[in-house]
């Protein structure tokens, strides 16, 4: 079990809150799609939302390695400027 620190941004904070959340990931190698399924299980309102995942401040796609204490950020489309 990897215990990561989850943060979400923008409209997603309406679903998860804006604070740092604890989140358990059952395996150390996971794909972005699998992580999304886990996230939707825990936060059903994420279903159908468009967002990208960053691990330790870098966007991830496909499979990646994750460790306890890592930062996972959920980021919806940007709207700066």
């Amino acid at each position, binding site marked *: 079990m990897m215990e990561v620190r989850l943060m979400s941004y923008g409209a997603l904070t309406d679903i998860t809150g804006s604070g740092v959340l604890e989140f358990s990931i059952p395996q150390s190698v996971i794909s972005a799609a699998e992580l999304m399924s886990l996230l939707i299980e825990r936060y059903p309102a994420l279903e159908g939302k468009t967002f990208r995942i960053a691990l330790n401040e870098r966007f991830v796609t496909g499979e990646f390695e994750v460790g306890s204490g890592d930062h996972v950020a959920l980021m919806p489309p940007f709207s*700066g400027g």
Partner: protein
Amino acid sequence: MLEKKPKNIFVDGPISPVKIGEDIAHHQKKTNIGAHSIFMGQVRADAVEEATVMAIEYTAHQEMALAAMHEIREAIFVKYPLTCLHITHSLGVVKAGEICLFVFASAVHRKEAIDACEEVVERIKKELPIWGKEIFADDEYQWKGNRG
């Protein structure tokens, strides 16, 4: 002109027009500059159904935003022979009519300054993890979406 450390671009609240005037004045010492191109984003009091936008509250993933901005700066300085490039973006609440984004590109000739400024604005909108929350009266809000 490549820089090693990401510069901060964020300020709390609106960007002051007086400060912008001062920034322009500071460039008068650089007598190799022939052209300045500036873009400013201003918060609009848009009407959404019955309500009007009073302000936008900006949040960012600051670390990733500054890293992304650093990459954009490096690419822009490789692509265009600029004299300098300054970017400021607001965080927190910016009221309708106030300025939330300031991009200031300077070069020897106008084409480079104008093209670089426009490209930086487009890339900021697309690539910087910043989010705007449009605030209406009565604590209502909606999350801003950027048009293409």
